[in-house]
């Protein structure tokens, strides 16, 4: 019974990991897809990304030595060029990220449905939302570039 329990617990953990990754990809695609509509969110994202880059730069500065960061300048510029840049890259990679989200979401969903433990409703909802977000986000990204 112990081996059986461990096997079931490991399958449940794999399902949770798949769902989490799928949900992350789905939300990312949704945010990128809705960026043209919610321009304020775009500024927020740029700001967050800039903060992350700045932290990383400071870390490397402490660890190694100062270097030129002029290449990071466009990231701090909230002009339309950077926006187009992100849009083009989103358009380029969205189908792949969407495929990852959908495949992992479906795999997670299958594993969750096979696992009969309690408290699985939340995970079923998460996996379903991940798939929906990924598809809607990808469609929104494609429409945002093509239209």
């Amino acid at each position: 019974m112990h081996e059986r329990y461990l096997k079931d617990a490991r399958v449940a953990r794999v399902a949770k990991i798949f769902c989490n990754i799928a949900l992350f990809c789905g939300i990312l695609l949704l945010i990128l897809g809705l960026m043209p509509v919610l321009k304020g969110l775009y500024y927020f994202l740029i700001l967050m990304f800039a903060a992350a880059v700045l932290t990383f730069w400071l870390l490397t500065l402490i660890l190694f030595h100062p270097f030129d960061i002029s290449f990071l300048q466009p990231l701090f510029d909230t002009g339309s060029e950077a926006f187009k840049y992100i849009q083009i890259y989103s358009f380029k990679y969205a189908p792949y990220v969407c495929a990852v989200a959908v495949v992992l979401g479906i795999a997670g969903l299958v594993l969750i449905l096979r696992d009969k433990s309690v408290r699985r409703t939340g995970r079923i909802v998460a996996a379903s939302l991940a798939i929906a977000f990924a598809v809607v986000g990808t469609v929104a990204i494609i429409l945002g570039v093509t239209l």
Partner: protein
Amino acid sequence: MNTLNLKVGRMIKGCRVYVDGRQIALKRNKDGTLGGVYTTDRDEAEVTVVKLGEFGGSLWFIWAMLFFVISCFGIFNAHYDRRNITVNYRSVVRLSGQNCLRLEFNNFNEGQPALAYQSDCPVEIETNLFGLDRQAAKRRKILTWIEVFMWLALIVLVAILVVKAIIG
């Protein structure tokens, strides 16, 4: 055909219920308990409620590392249970027609019975114990240190690559 209506009260996270070696689906009832139905031709059923540490088995480290890697360095991993409580309950229920077994978890007390039961049929308790997996706590600590070390190694590696790319 005999039927066992199983009801479980407040469930400890991570517990799994098996009847005759098969995990049964428990659904939440209106009264807050979890309920499941098991039907069998036999006149007895073995009910098992188990909770163990996930760091069990000889390959625990390989599994833990595998989960760590596929969850992108633990970012997407689910939390491991910190309490390290183990539950080991096994009983044989004598069935005749429609039977009901209600299980209720006791408060945790190491070495004491994990579940209290109420039933309208004879129940033979084989094992009923709460335990504390001290080995899992040790293994978890080892794993945490390894994870921290791997994160540091990753950060240093990325930083070196970035610096090299910029200088190059």
